[in-house]
């Protein structure tokens, strides 16, 4: 028995209305991401890559087509149902970090766990663990404004992982960082991926994309290239791929 794909889209279309003029952003994308895969979506500005991940996370409604998450149809969900789904299964990392400015680092990271119904103690333990992993333990009581960009993005990553989501969506997570911080964030992404985390990463930076198992290139809202890069070294342990290989 094979695990269902984490993400499966069927002929996904998104058309914006701009003053009555339809502007297609995504035109018929079929994308299948297996559990544990690290997929980079690249493409020039306006190619529809951000729109695609927003639709995958339910932040934006699709115009037509289907979205299946963990083998369940998701595109027909209501806004609230999407919100509940996000709480449990999806972690988001944004370009501008989007930490809640008034809350401390610790509160930012604990928020998703609390939202999912964890007790204050469970949330604290999880936060301590995550911040420890990301080397931010001593910044727990700082406010986001006191952190450097790289640190903020690491906090955002900790927050996205707080509920052990089955899918991590990262929209240009390094777009606003210098090269050193970019390296740090990518190293962290690589680490969580090695632990089995499925990741979809949007980037227009080829070097960042090269870190992924698989690179999907978009142009004008369509997939123009979809290739698996590298093997072995970055092959995650214990993923669906392994199972298929053993059976095969």
């Amino acid at each position, binding site marked *: 028995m094979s695990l269902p794909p984490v993400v499966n889209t069927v002929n996904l279309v998104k058309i914006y209305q701009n003053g009555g003029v339809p502007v297609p952003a995504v035109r018929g994308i079929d994308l299948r991401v297996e559990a544990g895969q690290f997929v980079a979506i690249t493409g020039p500005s306006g190619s529809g890559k*951000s729109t695609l991940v*927003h639709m995958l*996370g*339910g*932040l*934006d409604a699709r115009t037509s087509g289907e979205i299946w998450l963990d083998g369940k149809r998701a595109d027909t969900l209501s*806004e*609230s149902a999407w*919100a*509940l*789904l*996000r*709480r*449990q299964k999806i972690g*988001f990392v*944004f*370009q*501008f970090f*989007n*930490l*809640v*400015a*008034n*809350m*401390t680092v610790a*509160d930012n990271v*604990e*928020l*998703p766990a*609390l*939202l*999912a*119904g964890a*007790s*204050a103690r469970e*949330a604290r333990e999880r936060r301590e663990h995550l911040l420890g992993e990301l080397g931010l333990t001593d910044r727990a009581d700082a406010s986001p404004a006191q952190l450097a960009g790289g640190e903020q993005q690491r906090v955002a990553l900790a*927050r996205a992982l707080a509920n052990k989501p089955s899918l991590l969506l990262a*929209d240009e997570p390094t777009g*606003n960082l210098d090269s050193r911080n970019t390296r740090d964030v990518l190293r962290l992404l690589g680490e969580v991926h090695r632990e089995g985390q499925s990741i979809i990463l949007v980037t227009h930076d080829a070097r960042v994309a090269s870190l992924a198992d698989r690179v999907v290139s978009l142009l004008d809202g369509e997939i123009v290239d979809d290739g698996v890069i590298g093997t072995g070294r970055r092959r995650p342990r214990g993923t669906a791929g392994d199972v298929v290989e053993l059976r095969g």
Partner: protein
Amino acid sequence: MSTLRASVRWVRADLRARRGQALLTVLAVAGIVTALITSATLLEDGTNPWRGLFIESKGAHVWLHTRDAPDVAALSRLQGVVRVAGPYRAAPVMLTMDGRRSPVALRGMQARLPAVAVPLVRQGRWLRSGDADGVVVERSFAEALDLRVGGPFTVTALNGAVHPLIVVGLADTADQGFYPESTPGLAWTLTSTLAGVEPALGRSESVTGLRLADGEDTLPVVHGAVTMLGGQIQRMSTWREVRASMELDNRLLGLLLALFGGAGLVAAALAIANAAGGRVLSQTRDIATLKSLGYTRGQIFGLLMAEHGALGLLGIVIGLVCGQFAASFALEGMPILPLSPVPLLAITAGTAAVVLVAVALPAWRGGRTAPIPSAPAAPLTGHLSRLARLALLVRLPPALVLGTRDAFTRRVPAFLSIFGLAVPMMMITIGLGCWATLDDFLRHPEQVGQAAALTVRSDKLPAEDVARAARADPGVAAVYPGSEVSALEPEQTRSVLVRALGTSAEPYPFSVVEGRMFADRGEAVAGQGLLDLMGVRIGDRVRMTVGGTPLIVHIVGRVVEPEQDGEVLSLGMDSLAAKDAVPPQFYSLVLKRGVDPATVRARLLAASGEALEVQRVVNPAERLSVIRGVIVALIVVLSLLGLANLLTASALGLRDHALDLAVLKAMGLTPRQVAATLVTGTGLLVVLGVVAGTAAGASLVGGLIDLEGHSSGVGAGIGRTPSFLTLTLAVLAAIGAALLVALIPARKAARARVPVTAR
């Protein structure tokens, strides 16, 4: 429910980040609720201390005055009667103080206080069994005559015997109204003392009180008592009459507070809506982030409602507490009861509803925020406003032009801000107008129908001597003979006061605001209350009877009439029949400008050897002086509301233009110019709001006060607009303070390192 913990964290963090604004919201709501509670208490109790007194003294609903003691057992068997007070023996005596004689009803009591209709001793003590010459005096009577505990109370019985008694206590009662509206004055002695003062039973009466289970059953009980006692009853009074007689004429205060409270509530709703709306707008990204983390639309709505609504509800609770204090402070010395539950509940629920509605719209908008946090939240229109183009045309400095442009980039919040500032400013102007009207009352009493500062009368000297003595005083400008008689109005159902003062040839200087002064026999002027009561207008003829003599007068004008709810007809002495007019009962003295009435009074008393009775006319404004305190408090609350609105406008302006700051600096504007740009953006809204509010207030205030004057019977013509100087100062103070408040964050922003990213 799973979002509860997360939401609490969020709310706590958000409130911590904006303590000042949150505090302002709480204080503003608290202030408004305080005003509303105080107003309701005043309208209910302040205008009528009867309720408090009646409940505290377990008062009797019906009082029967009979020749002999009635059958108590039979009375108590009447349907609805719970207990019977008395019967007490009461004798009419005359109290002589400072040459003035005041009739007193001396009531015989036991040393033990009765179970119902208890005299409430406020000073001194109740009678003791050994008090052969002790007397407890009703408080309003004691105050009017300046009687003190331990002082003498020398009474003359009908047989002419003089009895020196000593005041041992002062007590409140709900048995009869306050002196001098209710006469004779009331005093209690031991029955043994009373028997000594008035041994003849035939010259006294018996007073019996009936306490009912339900005051609404008064009429059947009265009928029952009348049927039972028949011709024995000499006089009878019910709680309704006592309540009516205790009603003071300061409903104005309650109405003023209600007006302020009501308008303040609108202002508070605006301030809260602005504050919540501004906060939601500036938190768009955070809210979007929350949604991306899994908050649903409804949960965001609930979160925002809870946060902003809780502030309002906290304000309401504080206001409820403060309202009780404020009411007891405003009516110092009067027995205050807490507000009855219905208005209390109405105010609480009404304010809560207003707060929640005010918060609901921004919260709903917050809930609809798109969950994509990177979506820009910049203003939609970026083009130059007409005002800005105008500013460019007249070559204003660039900072001003840019600020003018900024002011209206968000149209709706801009207009809400203007409105939110205009409403408090309007109310402040109205408050200043009330202040000016009170000042006017005091400074020009002749304009409110009180040209005379003193009245003199004497029952020892002939009228001509009184007039001569008054005219001889150097401080007196004019002396008008006067008489007051009670006239039955046409349907003969109630009587009105007819005041003859001066003559047709030489009329007293009434303050005529409509029509003209009477100039001939048979002409009269009337107060608004009388016109309303009789349903007549200026130009009509009215027919009344004075002691059986018909009196037909032609009403030629309306005067400002502060007495008797305006139900007074004023005419010349020559219009009255000789039997009523000769000799005059009293003389009204108009003093020369700047002369102190107290000095003239002392001089007159000394010159006549205490034979004259000289009374000061009480200016209605003196009774209303508490209004000034109220106006100051309300101005403070309204300023808080304005400030809350201002902070919102300023914060929103800063947020909207934070990104522009980098551009402005890149264009070469100095930090000072950048600060000026930001201050102009906020300041323009402030100027517009303040000026509009002041103009609206100034145009409304006269009419509002006149409306109140009309409904209270005093009549229109008393309202004053605050002076131009006052208004200018108020506007300048408001704008100056506002600019100062706006300057601080603007300077900080101008000097801060300009952020490159969206945050």
